């Protein structure tokens, strides 16, 4: 079974079919996706500004990152699940969209990197080494996901 056939199967799921038939499903879910992304990138910015040394001079980076954790992952869950619903309604279109593949690659990298940073903070809560580099990579990956996502509609 080719990957394209798998994507075709996604589109044929009841959710995928419902999404294409309904006029409000896609816009409504996309608004949720946009709200989730606003909060997710907001939380990512919030943590990384601290890692760059630009905010919270009195608090340690690991404390700020821990404080933002529930917010960041809740927002990520909202964005990912709404994104999955959007994907189901137009999987085949996504298959042929180059920006979609850039976005997915960046998304996997961003999620993996975020998890690695969280694990490191949990393991050694004292202080984060290479904080600035971590922040630059994290911001690059997450905003890359956003830009590639926006580009899906343009290419």
């Amino acid at each position, binding site marked *: 079974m080719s990957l394209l056939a798998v994507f075709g199967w996604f589109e044929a799921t009841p959710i995928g079919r419902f999404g294409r038939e309904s006029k409000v499903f896609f*816009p409504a879910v996309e*608004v949720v996706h946009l*709200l989730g992304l*606003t*909060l997710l*990138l907001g939380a990512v910015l919030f943590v990384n*500004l601290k890692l760059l040394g630009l905010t919270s001079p009195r608090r340690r980076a690991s404390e700020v990152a821990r404080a933002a954790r529930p*917010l960041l992952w809740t927002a990520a869950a909202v964005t990912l699940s709404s994104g999955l619903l959007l994907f189901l309604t137009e999987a085949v279109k996504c298959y042929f969209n180059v920006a979609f593949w850039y976005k997915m690659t960046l998304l996997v990298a961003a999620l993996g990197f975020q998890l690695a940073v969280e694990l490191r903070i949990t393991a050694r809560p004292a202080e984060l080494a290479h904080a600035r580099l971590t922040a630059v990579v994290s911001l690059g990956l997450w*905003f890359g996901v956003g830009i590639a996502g926006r580009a899906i509609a343009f290419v």
Partner: protein
Amino acid sequence: MTILDLCHRLQDSAFGTALLESRYWWLIIESVHVLSLSMSVGMLFIADLRLIGKFRRHEPVSDVLGELRPWMLSGFALMFVSGGLLFWSEAATVFISPWFKLKMLFLALAGANALLFEWRRGRQPALWGTLDLPAGAQLAGWTSLGCWTAVILLGRWIAYAHT
């Protein structure tokens, strides 16, 4: 001259037309508008969550708001400039959309809420170091969350209604 006439003149101006026709620049500006949401509304949501006591509750409000403020304001500056340019390029088209008018209404409400909050906060500075906030401040947080959610929703809807 009505506001709609003014919108037509804006949209038909050399700059407005050039912007709309240069798809490349238009898409870049639109992406800046969408992604700067994270810096403006995203950061503001974090501040609102502090006001309603759902985030960083054990830190003084003034600390949380103080460190977010410059970033948030830069985000809103980016948002308004990019939004203004987008409006310039299709002023008359969006002006007739009821969704656009509703968006502007919620934007004005959000702005009034923020101004009222700043004004009250300035008058009661002693309150703002405390962990739990008076009901008025919590209400300001909820109002802000609600208004900005509506602004984002309606903003997205303008584009859907118009295609």
